[in-house]
């Protein structure tokens, strides 16, 4: 079966599901049932996290590409096929790591319909793990789409004032993006005769069809990612969702778009990816500059972070489509880092929102005086978001930009301004919230972080620093898989504009030779 002797991936998918059902059917009423649901949810997510760690430990770096493979053809047309590579492993780790934090973050801020809330989150976890483990293209689609249901309910039931509009927008936007992908999948499976993702990843689709297929997948992943100009659902959804909902949305759901590009668009349609790379680069460049500028003028904290997410995800897309190792590995690190950092930033917003019940930046100020612990952690995540060396943000963005520079220097130049603008809007945000005079009475009364809140932010801070100082732990599992992907897309690699210069000694010799040739030619024409 696998190195563990039990189907760990299936267990990881089904365990949260079982927890969700347990939350719903646990007997009791009112507060007792709510408390029990919190405990069940926390227990389930912690056990799943433990299983995730077990998965990481037992994952054999340098072993076969697909590990922990399971295959049960119980659905006729498609199979319950599971298996992971290093890329999926890292994203699963991100999901299971953020999940208990989300539960803890919702411990007190959610007071109504707690069992349903916890069940929705556990269902969400189950589906997220399913997306990253599915090895059958239709199974993947089912998990990918099914995630809409719990998120729709989370935004719609426990969201803010405009929650209904936001929930509709989220649902319909992402659904419209995905259905075209389904048509493409149907065609691919008929063409290739298999619905197994690993087999499809090595199947050469005819050139003419690739562009259409690529566009269909792009429609889905670009919305999910989200890329400019189909990002508008994100600020609405983020602002209205409850804190933990935003964390999951920013932390994991957006990564499904990036995962889709790595798993489907690039290896399955390498030629189309190369041919249509200008779409990705163009949209990403606009996204970086435009959404950063938009973030600069936001009055709502959550909206600001939401726009910054769009800008950061643009680094992922340029990295992925740089067609080189630095770019793809950088994109992976940006995804992991952004999952942690933006999740943490939303938690930071949640902390002060729980105290003052407003997300308006102007209502705060001077928090470094009365909430020093909060100010330190918020500072760390701000810096990580900017990409300060030593934090995870730096590693990812640096690698992605190096990759992009090799592919197209203009893209790199334009996108690097995103780092400057990122520093501008994040520092401006931090300044307005934490610095300045502590003069507002209600702000003065805000207590510093509680133990529970420290328990949510502390672990993320640790991982952010770990990833910033020693990214090798996170790069090692994905190295071989990026290599496989590169070998697959290498033949299609579009010509970059990098001017690779030769070493100095060689250069002289070459000039010499060239000079001769040129002279001779020149003389000949005279």
């Amino acid at each position: 079966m696998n190195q563990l002797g039990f189907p760990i991936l299936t267990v990881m998918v089904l365990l949260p599901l079982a927890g969700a059902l347990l939350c719903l059917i646990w007997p009791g009423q009112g507060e007792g049932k709510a408390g029990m649901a919190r405990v069940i949810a926390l227990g389930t997510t912690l056990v799943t996290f433990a299983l995730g760690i077990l998965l990481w430990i037992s994952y054999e770096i340098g072993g076969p590409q697909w590990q922990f493979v399971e295959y049960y053809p119980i659905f006729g047309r498609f199979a319950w096929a599971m298996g992971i590579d290093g890329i999926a492993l890292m994203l699963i780790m991100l999901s299971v790591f953020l999940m208990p934090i989300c539960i803890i973050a919702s411990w007190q801020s959610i007071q109504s319909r707690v069992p349903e809330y916890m069940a929705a989150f556990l269902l969400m976890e189950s589906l997220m793990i399913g997306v990253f483990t599915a090895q059958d293209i239709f199974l993947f689609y089912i998990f990918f789409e099914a995630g809409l249901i719990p998120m729709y309910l989370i935004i719609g039931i426990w969201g803010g004032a405009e929650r209904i509009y936001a929930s509709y927008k989220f649902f319909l936007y992402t659904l419209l993006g995905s259905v075209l992908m389904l048509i493409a999948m149907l065609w691919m499976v008929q063409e290739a005769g298999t619905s197994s993702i690993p087999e499809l990843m090595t199947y050469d689709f005819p050139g003419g069809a690739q562009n259409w297929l690529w566009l269909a997948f792009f429609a889905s992943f670009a919305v999910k990612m989200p890329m400019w100009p189909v990002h508008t659902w994100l600020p609405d959804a983020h602002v209205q969702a409850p804190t933990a909902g935003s964390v999951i949305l920013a932390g994991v759901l957006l990564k499904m778009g990036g995962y889709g590009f790595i798993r489907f668009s690039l290896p399955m349609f390498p030629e189309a990816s190369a041919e249509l790379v200008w779409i990705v680069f163009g949209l990403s460049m606009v996204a970086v500059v435009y959404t950063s500028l938009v973030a600069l003028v936001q009055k709502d904290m959550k909206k600001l972070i939401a726009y910054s997410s769009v800008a950061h995800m643009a680094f992922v897309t340029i990295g992925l489509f740089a067609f080189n190792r630095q770019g793809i590995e950088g994109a992976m690190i940006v995804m992991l880092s952004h999952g942690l950092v933006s999740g943490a930033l939303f938690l930071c917003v949640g902390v002060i929102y729980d105290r003052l019940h407003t997300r308006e930046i102007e209502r705060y100020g001077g928090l470094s005086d009365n909430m020093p612990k909060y100010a330190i952690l918020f500072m760390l995540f701000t810096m990580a978001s900017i990409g300060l060396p030593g934090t995870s943000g730096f590693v990812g963005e640096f690698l992605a930009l190096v990759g992009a520079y090799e592919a197209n220097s203009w893209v790199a130049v334009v996108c690097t301004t995103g780092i400057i603008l990122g520093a501008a809007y994040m520092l401006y945000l931090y300044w307005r919230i934490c610095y300045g005079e502590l003069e507002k009475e209600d702000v003065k009364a805000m207590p510093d972080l509680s133990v529970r809140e420290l328990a949510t932010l502390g672990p993320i801070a640790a991982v952010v620093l770990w990833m910033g100082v020693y990214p090798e732990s996170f790069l090692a599992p994905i190295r071989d898989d990026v290599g496989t992907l590169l070998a697959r897309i290498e033949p299609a690699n579009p010509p970059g504009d990098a001017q690779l210069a030769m070493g100095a000694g060689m250069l002289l010799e070459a000039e010499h030779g060239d000079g001769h040739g040129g002279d001779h030619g020149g003389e000949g024409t005279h």
Partner: protein
Amino acid sequence: MTIWESLLTVAPELILTLGATDLLLVGAFSKKPDVSRRVSIYAVLMLIACGLSLLGPAGNGGTVFGGLYVADAFSTFSKVLIYASAAIAILMAPRFFDRRSEMRPEYPVLILFAALGMGFMVSSGDLMLLYIGLEINSLAAYVLASFMRQDTRSAEAGLKYFVLGALASGILLYGISLLYGFTGTTSYTGIATAFADDMSTGELFGLVFVLAGLAFKISAVPFHMWTPDVYEGAPTPVTAFFASAPKIAAIALAVRVMFEALGPATDAWQQIVIFVALGSIALGAVAAIGQSNIKRLLAYSSINNIGFALIGLAAGTQAGVAATMSYMAIYVVMTLGSFLCVLQMRDADGRPVEDIESLAGLSKSQPGLAAAFAIFMFSLAGIPPLLGFWGKFLVFDAAVAAGLFPLAVIGIALSVVGAYYYLRIIKTIYFDDAAEPYAPANSVMENGLIAVTAAAVSPLGYLLVPFLALTAGNAAAALF
């Protein structure tokens, strides 16, 4: 083949004819107070007996009575669905009618007669039997629509249904007469032979009129106008019945006619079916958005769903037929489940409520019912992992395999529009502030049926997918 073998082949129809007539007499002459309950039970038992008889020659006896009647895997598949829906329609009725003491033994009897007609429809091998089956079904249906005779809306629904239905029957009959006139036969095989040579203009006209008549019965655009009014006016159990069994029968009938009789003219009807499918999907999706009555909304939803089912037919392939039949099977479960939920919408006095707004806050007052409602709505919208997705998956798969990319792309994009109004119901149930709570749902029978149907369309239903694929595949293979 002896006469006994022939009679065994039509066993379900025999059981229904004799049984329904007997029950009619029992209902008319019995003086017992609980006669309608007894008749209902007998009717359900009879439908079960019909279902069991399909295990014998009635299930696969082949062609009997000189090609008039066909018993094959296709008719069996359809009949199982029809009898099951009819039985559920009988079981869900008593409490609804009892409140106004309008439960009369005629209700189950009429359902049995309708089922009899539908049995003939799906087993017909000849245009004459097709028409007779259709009329037996329709006449019973007209009466059922106006079953609550004191209720003006019900009476109006019956009248409207009758007038428009008669018109459609006329169109169909005209088409049949044209086909008979230009091909010289009413048997499907004979017509297919005539069409195989060369299609004359008269034959084409006949084909178009037959299709128009059938489109009325499946309430596809542009012959859908009766649906919302009839669905709204008819008593809810009757609406549930209309939305399930006759839809299967009419779709199955259309499939059989198009492949067995008009198979050689696939090119001619394919474009019509594509137009009808897209029109139904689009209208069903857009027109439902503004509805405030749940039954009207479900009427548009059924138009929308029929459009999706027709996509499989439009593919014109065996896989397409299998997809259409699978879609109908899943659709019936979802629809019956939805209507069972609608039946639970009763105010404190037990009066039925049909306003969508009244669902507000149902998730707080009756979480179980709310969850079931949400499952059916998400499933009707075709969102995985619910089973409704699988039906859409199959029909789009067939369309893509047949190379009908524009149809597939437009159809699936319109499904997003449709998702909007299903979401609106879920929004009302889960997001809105509580309205006046409903009377408690305390019927064990109805709650049980809701639980069973909800479990079937939940992800657990995917375990049935291989079985569904096998039976629907066999059914489709019988036509090719």
